[in-house]
């Protein structure tokens, strides 16, 4: 996972890598919470381009982070989710709380 913060726009960019399951979420969750707390972004972009697998633990990870973003008044956005990931996001109704953008290069 790569976290980048743009100081001028206050946008945080998170690029997930590999597989998102309960095991990998435990590690990513701590890093994400630390970065959100440290940067207080006004927007967070989750990039799923390099995600090969995701189960419902990924939904828990997103909803959990959404709660802390709400507290600081930040928006969240999802980009580059593949068909499999998108099916799970849709099933959980993530589009109700985050903007899901179609393919971006």
């Amino acid at each position, binding site marked *: 996972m790569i976290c980048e913060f743009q100081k001028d726009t206050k946008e945080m960019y998170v690029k997930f890598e590999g*597989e998102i*399951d*309960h*095991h990998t*979420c*435990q590690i990513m*969750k701590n890093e994400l919470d630390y970065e959100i707390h440290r940067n207080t972004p006004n927007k967070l972009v989750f990039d799923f381009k390099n995600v090969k*697998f995701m*189960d*419902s*633990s990924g*939904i*828990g*990870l997103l*909803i*959990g982070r959404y709660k802390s973003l709400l507290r600081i008044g930040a928006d969240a956005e999802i980009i580059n989710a593949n*068909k*499999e990931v998108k099916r*799970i996001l849709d*099933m*959980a109704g993530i589009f109700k709380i985050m903007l899901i953008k179609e393919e971006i290069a």
Partner: protein
Amino acid sequence: MIINEMKLEIKSKSNNEAFARVVVAAFASQLDPTIEQIADIKTAVSEAITNCIIHAYDMKEGNIELKCQLTEDSIYIDIIDYGKGIENIEMAKQTLYTSKPDADRSGMGFTIMESFMDKLTVESIVGMGTKIHMEKVIKEAK
């Protein structure tokens, strides 16, 4: 008729989630599934194994049994734990229900297993353990 079978016992460690779903996917590949069917099976197995680790055994040590059978056209998967069991199966299966909302669980596990597989049955005895049985047709009858 069962044409092939495998059985595996693993510790309830979270890094076995990836191991278990890859093993089942590799076993299922004998039936020549599509990429989408493989993704469905991996996700369902990941959900069931994760539940054993975080719910049945509460992140403590325990053993998980994984059994797979192949027929000419389908895969049958059993995932068995000897953990705390489920008191109310109907409630547990409801979408968004989770007994661990503060641990970042989404309550989507059973919903995913049910919709990605063709059949799901849950047997459980409180204090004894839980058996998840799933079936998926890989080749439609001609």
